[in-house]
């Protein structure tokens, strides 16, 4: 039942040979060694495995890899080219650090990607839109307060950068 499936992953074309019903999460983690995509529930409920597919957030744990064929997929590793401690981070990553929006870090990659999809759509999100945009990504550590502040601050930063 193996099939060749190709898609764009973080800007590069990749080819995998696997059962098209295998989840995208398992394909990314096991076949392509993209361990930055985390597995929290495998039931599509927690958002730890969030990736961006053609501009939309997707829980990769319930997404069959067969459906990813030809699509453009971004993981947290695709957000910045060569990050170092001194620079190269995406503004969202930088501001998550400044605002103290990270604790255990397990939800963080998915959370930042969910926020990115929102900010790609609008740089003037309402408070309600921010809450809504990350509501599919569970976090048990932070109480979301600092995450919310970080997303809000990032929207202002990116807005100013655009001007």
């Amino acid at each position, binding site marked *: 039942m193996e099939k060749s499936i190709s898609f764009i992953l973080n800007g590069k074309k990749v080819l995998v040979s696997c059962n098209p019903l295998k989840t995208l999460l398992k394909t990314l983690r096991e076949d392509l060694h993209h*361990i*930055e*995509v*985390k*597995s*929290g*529930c*495998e*039931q599509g*409920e*927690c958002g*730890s495995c969030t990736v961006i597919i053609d501009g939309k957030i997707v829980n990769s744990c319930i997404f069959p890899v067969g459906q990813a064929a030809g699509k453009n997929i971004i*993981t*947290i*590793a695709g957000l*910045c080219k060569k*990050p170092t*401690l001194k620079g190269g*981070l995406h503004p969202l*990553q930088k501001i*998550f*650090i*400044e605002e*103290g929006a*990270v*604790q*255990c*870090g*397990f*939800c*963080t*990659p998915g959370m*930042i990607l969910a926020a990115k999809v929102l900010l790609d759509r609008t740089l003037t999100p309402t408070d309600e839109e*921010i*809450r*809504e945009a*990350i*509501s*599919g*990504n*569970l*976090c*048990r*550590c*932070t*109480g*979301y*307060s*600092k*995450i*919310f502040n970080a997303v809000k601050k990032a929207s202002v930063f990116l807005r100013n950068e655009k001007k």
Partner: protein
Amino acid sequence: MKKTISKKLTRSVIPRLSMDNFHSVGKTVPRNDVFEKVTGIAKYIDDYKFGDMLYGATVRSAIPHGNIKSFNSDRALKIDGVAAVYTHKDIPGKNEVPFILNDYPLLASDRVLFHGQPIAIVVAKTPEIAKFAAKKVEVTYQELPAVTSVHESLKKDAVKIFSSDNIFRKYDIVRGDAEKAFKNADVVVEGTYTTNYQVHSYLEPQGMIADPTPEGGVVIYGSMQCPFYIHDAIVHILGIPQNKVRVVQTTTGGGFGGKEDVPSIVAGHAALAAYLSKKPVKIIYSREEDFQSMSKRHPGYIEMKYAADKKGKIIACQVRYILDAGAFSTLSPIVLWRGAVHLAGPYNIPNVKIEALAVATNKVPCGAFRGFGQPQTTFANESLMDELAVKLDMSPLELRRLNMMNVGSRTATGQKITRSCGLEKVVRQVVKKSDWDKIYLPPEKRDGTIRTGIGIAASFYGVGLGAGGKHLDRAGSYVQIQKDGTVLIAIGNTELGQGVFTVISQIAAETLGAPYKFVRVMKPDTTRVPDSGPTVASRSTLMSGNAVKNAAGIIRLRIDKMVLKMLGVKSGVVKSDGKNYFLSANPKKKINYQDVVKKCYGERINLTSSGWYTGEDVTFSQENGQGNAYYAYSYSATAAIVQVNTETGEVEVKKLVSGHDIGKAINPQLCEGQIEGGVIQGLGWALTENLVLKNGIILNPSFAGYLIPTSSDIPEIIPIIVEERYGDGPYGAKGLGEPPMITPAAAISNAIYNATGWRTNELPATPEVLLKGTRNRHGSREHGTDTEL
């Protein structure tokens, strides 16, 4: 003896820094593990792969109570890729997971006591094959009746799950003469309170890898809070010497107590399979399996009475407190103890009588969860405080102010509070920041369909393990300055997300006079420092902080000597700004930190040291529950502002103002993070998190059925930090991890009462519970603690 030595070190070795002029302590610096977390490169246990690794899956009991009639793994073993199936018969050491009472078998032998109890481990080439094969293992049972409520379990003729009475542990705390005081009281209030389970819901599920070593030992890597607990467990299970077992923590995706005790089971299974198969074995739990078998917050059942005089002075408190511990005791005895010691609340009450019981039922074993019994007891005592205020015709605030603890007060265990008590300050600030005076109105003066209410709850929290766990309450450290000036630190406490590595780095940087950015804390590893106890009870900053401060202080003395030499002076007070050293008498002449380190290495000065810390002695009498239970207490209060829809019973929390006296905030932003995260766990427990069981079986073991708060449920949160310095804490710090979880639920429940006049004695306060309360509001309702359908 140890105590005296460590105390002397603290006082004489540490450079006399001006308390208000820190370069690292008290500053919001970025966490030192944050880069790998925002880029996704941090490695959690499931991100590791070893060559020739096998994967384990657990065969679990399909029933809540029964005898195992037959076990057959033939079909599983025939599946391609299955390497072995291990049962209790294969355990080389003892078939016990050592917690406190050692009643929990690693793998069931003849009897199962809860649905989900481990019976066998299947190992295979892939996790999928292992899970598939685990389902093919055939187990037949002779079913026995399941005891699912504590009340049923306590009956004389009940089926016996543990010992002859189903009681894992009982404590009595007796101070003064409560019975006499109740007879003479002007006002008496009483209530019965029940609380449901809470599931930790850490985002990273439980997981371990065990790697066998050529010399017949095993190395454990995994998601954990307490490497030394696991170390003890593996030695016990495999029957091998302690120096053949090594436990290393990997980046851990949340714990909240859920990775305190039960990871010893996961690690025990992985270690057994690795030891026997001679191959690395990885076990990662599915979310469903994690829900079904791992520990929970205990359901609580609390009958409580307060007696007061006419003026509102509380004269007595009487309580019967029962925890539903589930099938095995794990940490229930000590969870019970903490709740019992704090049961009378943060009030000065001369007569106290508390009876506390941890009772066995045929349900998932409960264990450690942030707050450790105190959220349950605080819900009861703080709800009843409000009832007392109503009866006395006082405001809830006035009553608390009249009775709250201060220096000179005594706790229920008779302990005199002698220092560092900031409760009054905490309450004052919480009242101010919540606009209490503007918002508070008695419930009878509120009307309309949607009503606003405000409520408050306060608590005190013994930092560390206290007298209940004092034999474990020590911490070691190893600090070394490398040749380039960077600092490596080994401690025994783990980073779970709370930020302890950052706090420890700040303490080390401050003491050494090194830049914060130069300091790195290594992942805890049992071969690096002596058993430093568990990472629980808000103890890491205080215990590991002091152990690191002691070690760094020893190194700093050597550095100071070198600085004096380099400056060509015989004596003087050496200070640091975090980059340079200088004499307090001549701050303009500076010597660079790295130059001093280089010079020390050149002159063969030892810039490494180990450190050790044990706290003041603590006591507890088994007879009457009297003694100095803890050496220090943190103090907390939370005000909640809610809106209640009186037609639908829906509650929206609008604001949570949560204040905490923690001695000293080493990193204010991390402290805020602890408060915000804790109060939202409290909000979830208060309103939405509702685990449902039927005949001992969990019906909603997933995030789809068990609702933890999402970003859409979050009110405005105002964290407040009060600093009543604790002289024996590192730079005055006490502890903060657990307290933020303790008061919010009671505050929310009191706010619901203030909005509507509905008193709920049951958590979670779902719309159904609240509306049921409006129909039957006379006296306290009867609830089972097992939340059966």
